[in-house]
């Protein structure tokens, strides 16, 4: 069974924006993605309108098409609330799959977390 860990951090901003840093490590596939996705839906629900998300993918080794579907849905929910979603430090194979499904047209990827923070604050 694929293993994944998800951790959440609040990002402090000068402008008072709500920004959550979500680190996903390991592998997201059919065996675990539905359970792991619930944790992120809970954060989005708690955050409410105006929440911004930075996904830090430096430890993410694999994501399947269903996990990309969830990522798209999180983007839709955050955008509907006026927030932004960005990705930082994704490995080349992860960026490759995000590109082939067209998600990089919606969600910008950044090489560092600092650059991702600048994009949302």
């Amino acid at each position, binding site marked *: *069974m*694929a293993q994944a860990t998800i951790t959440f951090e609040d990002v402090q901003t000068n402008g008072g924006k709500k920004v959550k840093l979500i680190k996903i490590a390991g*592998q997201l*596939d*059919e*065996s675990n993605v539905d359970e792991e996705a619930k944790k992120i839906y809970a954060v989005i629900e708690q955050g409410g309108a105006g929440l911004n998300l930075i996904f830090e993918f430096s430890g993410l080794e*694999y994501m*399947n*098409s*269903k996990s*990309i*579907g*969830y990522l*798209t*849905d999180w*983007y*839709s929910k955050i955008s509907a609330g006026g927030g932004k979603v960005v990705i930082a430090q994704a490995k*080349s*194979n992860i960026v*490759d*799959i995000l590109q*082939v*499904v*067209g998600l990089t*047209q*919606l969600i910008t990827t950044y090489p560092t977390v600092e650059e991702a923070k600048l994009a949302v604050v």
Partner: protein
Amino acid sequence: MAGENQTSEPVKITIILPTNAYFLSGIRDFTLSLTKNMTGFSDQWAYRFQTVVDELCNNAIEHGSAKGKDVVITFISDPKKSIEIVVEDTGTGPNKYNAQQMTNLLKERIAMMHSQYLGLRGRGLPKIVAEWTDELIFEDKPDGGLRVKAKKYLREKEDQVLLEAQNKATHLQLV
């Protein structure tokens, strides 16, 4: 499995998998190692083919074979030429499709993906499997079930192929 395969002869490996997504990570590890070490494909294409295999196996587990049945996965590596994956289900699953239905479904989903698609499901076949293979064939098995063959050819100038892939649609052979 370290280093290059010592033979230039085609290698065929068949794995029988219980209908359970629990085992998919092992199949992905095997696919990545095989493609990196025995085919001549680049690391980028090894990761891509790993994803293709995962998506096809997952479809067979989700739709084609019932719990307690099997999914049969066959890798055919023709070193320096091609790699092919054949995934066979038993046709006992809750949402099984025949070859014609799969062909129609693929066409529908490719059309659906032309606009900005924000749905939860439906990207695996048209945006990953079809984009990252050169031939994709659906066949009905004589004893029931579906056989899906996905083949990728190795080109001499892979960078050129990558550039072409970005500029034009992937060739698909649908039977």
